[in-house]
């Protein structure tokens, strides 16, 4: 993108070519070495942009080269010739490409990338992508939490970049703009935004430090002469020696490049920047001496606080493992190690080839810690697969039992935070299961689970909600803990308190009830008389699936 901009604005140089061409070639080669990427790097259309630019830059380089060796007249003739042939070839190539790309359903763009370009795309078409919390747009508090004072420094940095717009600074500006957009679409892409923000605030800081220190220098009587020499030297090193104005600009730029290299050094500053800007416009470096000193001290202080904040954020928000939870109470640290308790139970007390069904979030954990086969995990690409589990969770008990039985599942694992107030449990994720399940199996309809568009599990909840497997597995015998069945996450009493499970049995619940494991009850032995009855029932009622499994069984 930056290269394109440079070419359009006529800033092409051989340096640009050298920087870009090998990067694309090497980058693509290296990317295709990553097993997951493979040939996707050249096959999917997300990457066409860079290849297009790659072609363009070659054409442009060729044009410049020919321009150099031919006389202007000859050059004009050559241009008309080449352009006419080139256009025909290009058209043909583009037509082929378009045809190829159009033949794939999503136009060669994966859903994830499409949701980047159109933030509403995922929630409209692919609930599974939208369900991942990392793919949600970030909230403002999370921005402030993550970048803190950088939020003020970044605009200042952008302004500083524009004051003398060079190749390098325009690249940085483009970088920050695109990364801000992407991070606005997905929380996960905050990672892309972080280095850009660091560079920008580094620029802003160095610019402001520059201004302050210079104004101090100018006001110290004996040093004034020196600093003039200093400025002169800097400018003579630059390509163009101009007046005082150019000198300061050049100086600015030289300083700008440096912090961008050590971009990890996050630093500080805030409202000072507008005044800095005004100062630069005036091109007079006369801030009051005391004010500059105080400002520098403030900046250093701000930086120090930011370091403290970053360390805190890294320690508390990003390093805490999500499977071992801790809480501080009056009698000290309390550890909630329920996940590992459940996984360890699974690994020691179930058969090696038993399969465990759970929502896919716990797939990797179950595989790694419990060493059991799971139905869906965090890398399940098959949407139908996930939708099947979602459907089972949102179906009534019997239908769910049939689905799980057809998947050869022995155990069902649900995460329940209602007793201790752990908010990211399965009940809170349940709407996504309904949506994803409903996306593939239309008999699961989201409105059935919502009362007047609201998701609730109290006495106002819909009967579909109160009878679905997830509700039942989560709240089975929950009322016996406190007599009221008060859910601490949803802050309400649950709707249906006393019920029995007919097709599942509780085999393990962890100490704080965070993980509950149920076993599928074996199919009941059919006694003669009963078998007749059930068969007549099966034929009379609508449970076609049941009769299907009955028919299937003799062939095992």
């Amino acid at each position, binding site marked *: 993108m930056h290269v394109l901009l440079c070419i359009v604005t006529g800033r092409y140089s051989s340096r640009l070519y050298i920087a870009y061409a090998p990067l694309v070639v090497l980058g693509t080669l290296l990317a295709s070495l990553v097993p997951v990427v493979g040939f996707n790097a050249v096959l999917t259309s997300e990457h066409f942009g860079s290849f297009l630019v790659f072609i363009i830059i070659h054409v442009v380089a060729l044009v410049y080269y020919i321009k150099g060796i031919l006389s202007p007249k000859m050059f004009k003739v050559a241009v008309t010739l080449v352009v006419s042939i080139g256009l025909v070839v290009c058209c043909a190539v583009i037509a082929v490409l378009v045809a190829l790309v159009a033949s794939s359903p999503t136009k060669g763009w994966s859903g994830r990338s499409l949701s980047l370009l159109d933030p509403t795309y995922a929630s409209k078409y692919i609930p599974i992508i939208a369900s991942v919390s990392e793919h949600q747009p970030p909230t403002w508090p999370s921005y402030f939490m993550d970048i803190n004072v950088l939020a003020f420094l970044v605009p200042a940095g952008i302004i500083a970049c524009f004051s003398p717009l060079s190749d390098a600074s325009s690249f940085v500006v483009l970088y920050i703009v695109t990364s801000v957009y992407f991070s606005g679409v997905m929380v996960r892409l905050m990672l892309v935004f972080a280095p850009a923000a660091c560079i920008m605030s580094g620029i802003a800081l160095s610019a402001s430090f520059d201004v302050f220190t210079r104004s101090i220098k100018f006001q110290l009587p004996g040093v004034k002469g020196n600093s003039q020499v200093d400025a002169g030297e800097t400018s003579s090193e630059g390509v163009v020696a101009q007046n005082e104005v150019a000198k300061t600009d050049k100086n600015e730029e030289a300083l700008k490049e440096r912090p961008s290299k050590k971009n990890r050094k996050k630093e500080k500053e805030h409202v000072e920047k507008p005044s800095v800007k005004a100062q630069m416009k005036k091109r007079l470096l006369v801030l009051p001496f005391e004010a500059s000193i105080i400002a520098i001290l403030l900046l250093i202080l701000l930086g120090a606080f930011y370091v403290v904040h970053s360390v805190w954020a890294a320690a508390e928000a990003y390093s805490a493992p999500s499977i071992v939870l801790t809480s501080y109470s009056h009698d000290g640290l309390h550890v909630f190690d329920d996940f590992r308790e459940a996984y360890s139970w699974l690994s020691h007390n179930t058969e090696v080839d038993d399969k465990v069904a759970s929502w896919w979030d716990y797939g990797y954990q179950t595989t790694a810690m419990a060493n059991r086969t799971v139905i869906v995990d965090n890398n399940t690409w098959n949407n139908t697969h996930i939708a099947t589990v979602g459907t089972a969770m949102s179906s009534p008990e019997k239908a769910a039992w049939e689905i799980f039985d057809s998947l050869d599942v022995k155990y069902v694992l649900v995460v329940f935070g209602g007793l201790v107030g752990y908010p990211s449990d399965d009940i809170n994720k349940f709407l996504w299961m309904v949506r994803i399940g409903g996306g593939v199996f239309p008999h699961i309809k989201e409105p059935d689970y919502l009362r007047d568009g609201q998701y609730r599990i109290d006495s106002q909840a819909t009967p579909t909600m109160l009878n679905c497997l997830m509700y039942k597995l989560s709240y089975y015998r929950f009322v016996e*803990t406190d007599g009221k069945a008060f859910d601490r996450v949803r802050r309400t009493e649950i709707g249906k308190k006393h019920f029995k499970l007919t097709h599942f049995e509780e085999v393990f619940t962890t100490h704080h009830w965070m993980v509950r494991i149920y076993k599928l009850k074996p199919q009941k032995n059919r006694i003669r008389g009963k078998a007749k009855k059930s068969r007549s029932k099966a034929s009379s009622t609508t449970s076609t699936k049941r009769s299907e499994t009955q028919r299937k069984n003799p062939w095992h």
Partner: protein
Amino acid sequence: MEAQLSVRAILLLSLLPLLSLLARSSSSVSQDIQIVNAERRIDLTSHIVKVFLTLKVENIGSSPVSDIYLAFPPTQVDHLALVKAAATVGKRKKKSYLPLEVNPTELPDAPNGTKYFSISLVNPLSVGETLTIEVLYILTHSLEPFPVEISQSESQLVYYHDSAIILSPYDIKKQTTFLKTPSTKLESFTKVEPTNRAGTELKYGPYENQSPHSFSPIIVHFENNNPFAVVEELVREVEISHWGNLQITEHYKLMHAGARHKGVFSRVEYQSKPSFSGVSSFKNLLARLPPGVHSAYYRDEIGNISSSHLRTDPWKSELEIEPRYPLFGGWKSTFIIGYGLPLQDFLFESPDGRRYLNFSFGCPLVETVADKLTIKVVLPEGSKDPSAVVPFPVEQHLETKYSYLDIVGRTVVVLEKRNVVPEHNSPFQVYYTFNQVFMLAEPLMLASVFFFLFVTYVAYLHIDLSIRK
């Protein structure tokens, strides 16, 4: 299950007359000795069955006898963890015990697979003399849960099989057997008159003038809710470092060997009614560690287990551990305990210049049976002539282990024993010779590597490798 039981009972019953016949017809060892009085106390309160046997032996033969034989039915021999015997010396207040050597032996005319242990007397018992011998033997896995599977709310009932009459190759003039059960809840017991029951005690006998190899099978069915904690496999690795540390790493495979848990595990019942629900389950264990333990850890394959407490004082250390989940019948768990100990408390120099490690054998968990115990003593690199001295028979072999910066490897003395009970927690010694110089090998090696690295660099700086001047 039941079929098996009845088969066994029939077998044993049919043996009775046969045994006695056999014994009478050919008894080369028996007739010299008779047991004047025998008293047996069987402690059934935990899942480890302890039997205290007091025998008053008299030589009625014509020549001194130096060996006394104990007989065990084959079903018990398999579960026999330990047999200890001591002779009582002195009378009343001056009574003291003199430990005697006990060895398994074969007798030529052993009826129907009966196994024998011989007690070697220090001084042969001369004609007409009497001697009192105290025998302790311990049986593991001898309480058979019945019903085999119980649900969470039931308590655990077990069977104990034995004989009302002490199996012995000698005539026993008078004998009594006492059984002590953990609670007064006794489902049933076989009556062999006279049989008395009082509280938690069941008394069989006295029976008089029983001939050799008499047998009268009994079954006691009673409640036992003690934790049936069995370590299926325990590997203890003791690593000696002459820099002053003894590092112990213990790998446990724990199992609840009681009646299998069946059906539902309901946390709500387990938490709200602890006295009804899961009475036979256990959720914590106590490990008695040597004093001076430092840097103890308790973890499993997926990381630290936060539920443990270490209490130390100058005389003992106690580590209370909770597995990740309470263990019900048939449930398993694995974990690792590790700790360091100061070397000077365990490593000594013997008068002949060799060094020896004095450490306790056995499983540090209280009231636990270890089905298979492996102790690996990792000697420091360069030690020679290892030999182990263990107070009871164990399997031994040597291994080599490579650790960081090892060249020849460390000698590992491996001791293996099956069926280990807490009574095996007696000290054992591993002797070896070690030259202190070897301690410096690794630091010297590291230092020399760095030295040569720098020397090479210095040399490189001083050599001009360019072709053109």
